[in-house]
């Protein structure tokens, strides 16, 4: 109920339209109710050899009633679509906005397919409810009362006989939909599972092919499909038992009216016209009663859809801006880590007591083995995650005291996993600075040593990049990511293993170009190739989330520690080949 109420808040904004729709619906219902009545009167007139003039009058009434009904039905149908579409427009925007704001921690856990289904299928369920269920339920109620009243006033015995059936039919409809609901839920889950299998298979198609797993994948998929098939069959059986039964149950009162009412007509206590009215009204009532099941289904679907949507909307982004957060402006880039600890999940810490300080314009290198926490540090500076303890300051200000937007416009990361959008190369480079001029784009492309390659393509900068950049080589993707980062012109630049798929020479050229571009900026470089960070102002060697060595290249070499060992091993191979193998 609370969920319905919250959903209605979205609709509430359009209460004027909703009210208008409701008025239309009332008119529809009322004029609809008038039609069988006047038809019955007409029949009586002709059956009892009454006035011809009454027929003309009846025609006028019937015609105006149907016209009125038609026009108001149009109004209702149109207005309810407007209200439901506007409601869903708001919900969808809100969801999208929220998804954009939710922090990395949320997206680490979430599955794209799942989120998609909330913004599509679930929003659609709500649209159905707002469009048809909300007022439809009220209309059903009014119709039921109206018809009962008319029938009772015509002939109460016959009315009782007829109406006695309806609660039973209604109850069957509801209990049937209760029965079927869990099955639908199951189907929904199975569909989602099927979707996930399909999506992973398609995105991982190279791996599937490399390991010749087509047969196994097909088997897995058809297992999913079989489950879905079985569940659908179960639903079909349930439906086959119930739907026709209900239709039959509704035809029984008609038979009763015919039989018992017919006797009354013969006995003279009821007119033929009344009998007709009964049959016509019953016909009018049959539909809503049968739809009772649909409505209850809709209602519970809406509630579960609402639940799933609010589950997202209720998730507060882990990263919250303080109310009195300040606009950081352009930062100089003096960074302090003060005893920073962090963990992704609550159990294993990813960073332990990290402290270091960087002066503006310095070059910092983060090195260390896989999983030692280098990328994690890179994630903390733009505040993609919040530290667990300790604090990070830039220019002396705790990053949690700045607005997120102003912080992130100062700190830009070229992430380790390159994600490209299916758009042109130009749009991808300009992703973070849409207003960049062509010259600027070319300039950063040159700095990333990408310009020549782009020029060699038939469509140049307008070349369409396939999904996730599928048609580019690994190094090309990485260089594109560097270019797009450079274009933003941040005061703090983080390159997370951004040249791992680039050959040493190109990397060297990029570094040289970068040296010019990053002059004056604080730069973090994460890499496994030690020689390239030799001239860094600060080198941090990480291991299991801790800094185990720090200092300048020469200091570290002098220390005889891990750094020296790795550095020498990387160097030695460039001097004498094969021998290193034998030495070890």
């Amino acid at each position: 109920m609370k969920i319905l109420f919250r959903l209605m808040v979205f609709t509430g904004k359009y209460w004027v339209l909703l009210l208008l729709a409701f008025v239309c619906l009332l008119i529809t219902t009322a004029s609809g109710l008038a039609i069988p009545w006047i038809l019955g009167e007409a029949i009586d007139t002709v059956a009892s050899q009454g006035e011809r003039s009454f027929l003309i009058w009846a025609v006028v009434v019937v015609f105006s009633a149907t016209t009125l009904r038609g026009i108001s039905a149009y109004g209702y149908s149109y207005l309810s679509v407007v209200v439901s579409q506007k409601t869903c427009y708001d919900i969808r925007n809100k969801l999208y906005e929220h998804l954009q704001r939710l922090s990395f921690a949320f997206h680490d856990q979430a599955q794209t397919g799942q989120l998609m289904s909330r913004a599509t299928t679930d929003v659609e369920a709500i649209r159905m409810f707002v469009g048809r269920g909300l007022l439809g339920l009220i209309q059903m109620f009014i119709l039921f009362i109206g018809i009962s009243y008319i029938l009772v006033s015509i002939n109460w015995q016959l009315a009782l006989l007829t109406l006695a059936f309806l609660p039973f039919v209604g109850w069957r409809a509801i209990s049937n939909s209760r029965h079927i609901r869990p099955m639908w839920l199951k189907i929904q889950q199975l569909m989602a599972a099927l979707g996930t299998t399909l999506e992973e298979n398609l995105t991982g198609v190279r791996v599937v092919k490399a390991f010749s797993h087509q047969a196994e994948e097909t088997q897995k998929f058809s297992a999913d499909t079989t489950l879905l098939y079985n569940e659908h069959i179960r639903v079909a059986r349930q439906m086959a038992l119930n739907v026709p039964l209900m239709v039959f149950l509704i035809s029984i009162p008609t038979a009763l009216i015919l039989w018992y009412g017919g006797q009354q007509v013969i006995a003279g206590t009821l007119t033929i016209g009344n009998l007709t009215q009964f049959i016509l009204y019953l016909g009018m009532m049959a539909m809503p009663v049968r739809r009772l099941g649909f409505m209850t289904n809709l209602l519970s679907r809406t509630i579960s859809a609402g639940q799933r949507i609010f589950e997202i909307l209720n998730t507060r982004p882990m990263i919250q801006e303080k109310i009195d957060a300040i606009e950081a402006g352009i930062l100089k880039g003096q960074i302090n880590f003060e005893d920073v600890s962090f963990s992704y999940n609550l159990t294993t810490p990813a960073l332990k007591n990290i402290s270091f300080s960087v002066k503006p314009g310095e070059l910092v290198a983060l090195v260390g083995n896989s999983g030692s926490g280098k990328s994690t540090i890179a994630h903390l500076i733009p505040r993609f995650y919040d530290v667990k303890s300790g604090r990070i300051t830039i220019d002396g200000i705790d990053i949690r005291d700045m607005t997120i937007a102003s912080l992130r416009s100062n700190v830009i990361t070229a992430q380790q996993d390159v994600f490209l959008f299916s758009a042109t190369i130009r749009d991808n480079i300009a992703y973070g600075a849409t207003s960049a001029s062509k010259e600027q784009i070319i300039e950063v492309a040159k700095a990333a040593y990408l310009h020549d390659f782009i020029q060699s393509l038939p469509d140049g900068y307008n070349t369409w990049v396939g999904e996730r950049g599928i048609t580019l080589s690994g190094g090309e993707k990485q260089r594109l990511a560097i270019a797009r980062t450079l274009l933003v012109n941040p005061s703090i630049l983080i390159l997370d293993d951004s040249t791992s798929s680039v050959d040493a020479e190109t990397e060297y050229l990029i570094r040289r170009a970068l040296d010019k571009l990053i002059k004056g900026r604080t730069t973090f470089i994460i890499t496994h190739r030690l020689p390239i960070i030799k001239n860094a102002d600060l080198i941090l060697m990480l291991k299991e989330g801790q800094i185990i060595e720090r200092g300048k290249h020469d200091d570290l070499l002098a220390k005889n520690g891990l750094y020296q060992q790795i550095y020498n091993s990387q160097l030695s191979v460039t001097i004498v080949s094969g021998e290193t193998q034998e030495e070890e």
Partner: protein
Amino acid sequence: MYQGGRGGPQVHGTFDADEDEALGKVYNSRVIKRLPKYLGPVKLWVALGAGGMMVRTLAALALPYLVGIATDKFIQAGNLSGLNIIAVAFVGVGLLVWAGQYLETLFLSYAGQAILYRMRTEMFAHLQRLSLSFFDRSKVGKLMSRVQNDVQQVQELLTSDVLNAVTSVLTLIGIAGVMIVMDVRLALLTLTVVPVLGVVIVIWQKYARRAFIRVRRAIAMVNAQLQEGISGIRVTQSLSREEINLRQFDGINEIHQKANINAAKLQSLMMPLVEILTGVAYSLVIVFGGYQVLAGEMGPGVLIAFLLYIQRFFNPVLELTMLYTELQRAMASGSRIFELLDIEPEIKDSPQAIEMPLVKGELKLQQVSFSYQSGVEILHDIDLAIRAGETVAIVGRTGAGKSSLVNIITRFYEVDKGAVIIDGYNVRSVTQQSLRRQIGIVLQDPFLFSGSIADNIRYGHIDATYQELIEAAQIAGAHDFITHLDHGYDTLVGERGSNLSAGQRQFICLARAILANPPILILDEATSNIDTNAERLMQKSLHSLIKGRTCIIIAHRLSTITNADRIIVLEKGKIVESGSHQELLDKQGLYYHMCEAISTFTKNNMFNL
């Protein structure tokens, strides 16, 4: 009627609207011709269901007739026993409706689900056969919507739309027929509204069709925007582009809303139309029928029956107009499905393809040229011979074509010219499956499936024992970090392995290839995100493993490959140098330059030592 999913959960038209294909023709012979194949196996069910449908329709038609008879023959005449009979007959006909609808609901659902199952698995299996070049061109979202939504559309076409159309037409004809039998003049008079309705509907359709196409397109746009918005979220946040994305989404969302409202305007138009025509029909019956009754030429029962029939006449009409759109959509879906099913895999096993036996691993490339798109040649006249058991490193500038070389050895793509020969077998003459069993490959992009780490490593060798699994992980150097994770080998990895560091993902991919235990091992920058120490250790443990195996290593970090038996330098799609590390250094060619680049960083000229 239950329609196997309509009204139930549905994935909504993801990427559905292929530009102008949102709605097709109502009758597309290319699609229709293919359908019998799917109907064949379920024809008994369809027949039973269709039979039930007929019974239901005809029985439902009889009910107002019975009311008319009851009134004129028995009630007017005061015939009580006749009335009893009619009441019983009425219930009997009701039972027929019940039985008919039972058969219809059950068997049409059976048939529908069986067709869905068959089409889905067929499409999936077909997708598995298609070559990578196809996937380079396609969007995952679009393919998904083929298998999920389009299939459902076609299934509905086969098991409900067509039959519904038939029933509706049958009902209309039936009602007209009964009316005519009951009173020709009144019937014809009432039916004059039909041509009017027909004309209006034809005009309406033209506008409605356009409106519906716009709706389908808008849905596709919303979905595409959502999809990229979600999967690219990390880039968006790090480049602070949320506002722009929001504005873009808002724009598309609004287009979607407008398109829907516009379509609703048109769709709702049918209501007043039908209502007014019903009113006209009622009026005609009351006036002319009423006069006839007054004149004693007709019983009031006929009048009542006519009114009841009019009440039922317009539902099928409305249904038919809706069905018209449904049919168009289904045809469009059908043609998309068959278009996909008709795509021949560019790489197929030849009919004479043989199973490649376990090879020793001798590899030859003879005059191989290759391009992804015709006109842009990536590899030119490559000649390369690798002995069984040799370890060969391939180096070269980024974009030189190293990964492409691997792609043709595994026959992910077909060469334009020349031949790839393994142990004397041309890769084109053997089955792809037997070929790839010989080759274990670690791809440049470390893709993991969601599931446990153990499942991911086992991917290459499903029935490996736990012991083998651990050994492979140990050789890859992954064992240590895995055991440090909270749930060890049972740790679940997220989409694409999102909760692991990049290096950790590479370790797992390595373990996966090692466990597959193939005679030929290809590592395409398999250790680019792994530190040199770990890499060194891994290479040592790999060394014992790869003894006797052919090994191709692609790497940019030259320290990785100095021990290789041979180093091949690729430049702009050509092999420019080949030899051992020392030989190449002595040559002072491109390789020497690449090494020099590293030493430039170190600012000592190492080569003078």
